[in-house]
């Protein structure tokens, strides 16, 4: 069995951006992610927000393939409850008659959901439904309820099911303390006497990050062993390769053109793209972090690690492990074809 896995260690220079503004604290000021070490404040962009944008890239790629890589309707909109709803939709299987999701068809329905939806497959889910379904009469959720009524099975007595995501994203951490915050007002005001309604702080820094995808899990059924004579791979080999390639390209597209929260007015000014990609068919892909921590240095406890690409490169054996370094976006995009040729 080949254990295809890929890791990305990368540095991004992001100027005047708000990718790290993910929420307000009750005031009308959008708060950036801050990492406080004694007197020093660093800057971080959470892996969760990056994951979201990699998935957006992924579903664009799925949609643009010919033929399309299959997705369920709510996954195509990255609906946050796509897992539970997707499994219920797969259970009903386009039948005009309502079907009840219960212990008899739970695992076959989870398998069908993986087959029908690449987003559920690579993105993972936790379906922790209760054993009763309420009446679909709340105005807040009309669209969702309509979809559920038309396309989803009723919920019977059914256990929670979970699928771990096939890819994980660690934080982007700034290499230098954050001295300056620039505030952007998100609504135009024509008089200086008025307070700004909403404000978000903008940052500039160079960041280091890690992404890893366990490609060998794509298209597999986590519950194959609970079904009679069922193979672990739930889709065909060629379909698995298409999904693997699309996920790799989605990750690369993020690094090449990073987007995140609060980009409506300002795309980040990218002034640095570099790193290393390690692909292996033998094990979970190792990585070297682009940052290093030195607690003895009070003025700079977090620093760039200049050796990280060399460390990644030293792991290459050209038999089952390959490494591609990139120093700019052109190098990075060129790696897509080379990686696909190895799969």
């Amino acid at each position, binding site marked *: *069995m080949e*254990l295809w896995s890929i*890791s990305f260690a990368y540095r991004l220079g992001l100027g005047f951006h708000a990718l790290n503004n*993910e*929420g307000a*604290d009750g005031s009308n000021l959008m708060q950036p992610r*801050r*990492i*406080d*070490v*004694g007197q020093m404040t660093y800057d*971080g962009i*959470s*892996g*969760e927000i990056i994951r979201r944008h990699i998935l957006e890239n992924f579903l664009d790629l799925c949609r643009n393939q010919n033929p399309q890589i299959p997705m369920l309707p709510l996954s195509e909109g990255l609906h*946050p*409850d796509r897992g*539970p*709803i997707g499994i219920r939709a797969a259970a009903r299987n386009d039948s005009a008659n309502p079907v009840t999701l219960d212990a008899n068809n739970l*695992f076959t329905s989870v398998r069908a959901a993986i087959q029908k939806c690449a987003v559920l497959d690579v993105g993972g889910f936790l*379906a*922790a*439904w*209760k054993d*009763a*379904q*309420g*009446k679909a009469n*709340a105005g807040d*959720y009309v669209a969702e*309820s309509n979809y559920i009524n038309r396309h989803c099975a009723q*919920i019977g007595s059914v256990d*929670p099911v979970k699928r*771990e*995501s096939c890819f*994980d*994203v*660690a*934080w982007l*951490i700034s290499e230098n303390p954050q001295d300056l915050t620039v505030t952007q007002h998100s609504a135009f005001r024509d008089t200086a006497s008025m307070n700004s309604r909403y404000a978000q702080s903008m940052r500039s820094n160079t960041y280091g*990050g*890690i992404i*890893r995808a366990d490609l060998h*899990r794509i298209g*597999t059924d986590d519950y194959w*062993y*609970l079904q009679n004579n069922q193979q*672990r791979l739930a889709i065909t080999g060629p379909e698995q390769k298409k999904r693997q390639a699309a996920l790799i390209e989605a990750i690369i597209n993020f690094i090449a053109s990073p987007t995140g929260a609060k980009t409506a007015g300002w795309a980040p000014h990218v002034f640095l793209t570099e790193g290393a990609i390690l692909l292996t068919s033998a*094990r*979970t892909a*190792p*990585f*070297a*972090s682009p*940052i*290093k*921590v030195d*607690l003895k240095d009070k003025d700079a*406890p*977090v620093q760039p690690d200049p050796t990280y690409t060399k460390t990644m490169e030293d792991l290459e054996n050209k038999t089952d492990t390959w490494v591609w370094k990139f120093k700019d976006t052109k190098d990075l995009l060129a790696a897509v074809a080379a990686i696909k040729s190895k799969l």
Partner: protein
Amino acid sequence: MSRKKGTVDSESVAPATALPLIWLKAAYKFHTYAYRDPRSAFASAMGSPVVSPTTVLLGIASTLFSLGKESAAKAFLDVANNCRVVVDAPDGIIFFRVFHQLRRYETDKYDKHNPRLGLTNINQGTREYGLVEGQTIIYVGIPEDHAEAAKLALTNLGHLGTRDSMCSLIDSVANCSEPKDVVYMPPEQWKTDIHPGCTAVTLSRFKNTPVTQTLPHWWMAGGNNTEQVPYFIRGRFEGTSKGKIYRKR
């Protein structure tokens, strides 16, 4: 059953292993690290510099399942309560708190006809993440028949702690002797042998009873066969205005 925090009952002694154990050593590095103290509230999770024995043992089983090795995973879970775990903390960790949108499950608490029962809603909470200096070393004592499977799992372990707490194995998994110098002391040890310069952290571990399934397809820490107890580890915490720093020395 006793799930009282920080207490040790007669049932909850460290595994009295009947089987001879093979010790394995695996060193990992992180980019960012996150492991939640099991005592802390879901919405304000405190970070711990070492992971718990259940995290390591369930991580081995989970990795074996993800590699398609279900029979090895199930067999390992059958002896997990006989295994021993020692975790050597890294040199230091800077913990930082972040404000998160947390997903919680819709319930029928306020609306008996809630159409979104079982789906998710958003609440706010905080989490502690860590930036790590040095490496975390995991030592696992495993019955001989399961050592090869555990070695495979430790080689392919994707994360220690939460999913975004990815770890990268340094070198390879090696056989070793039982670590005697590492301070990762369960209550049975620190009550008779207190070391200076140590800190107590709450961790979860299996009791002496076999690990049981929560559901036909699910094994979890937190049931009747696990408990939370204070472990002593080497090092100190230093508070900052908005977080904490752990230093081993």
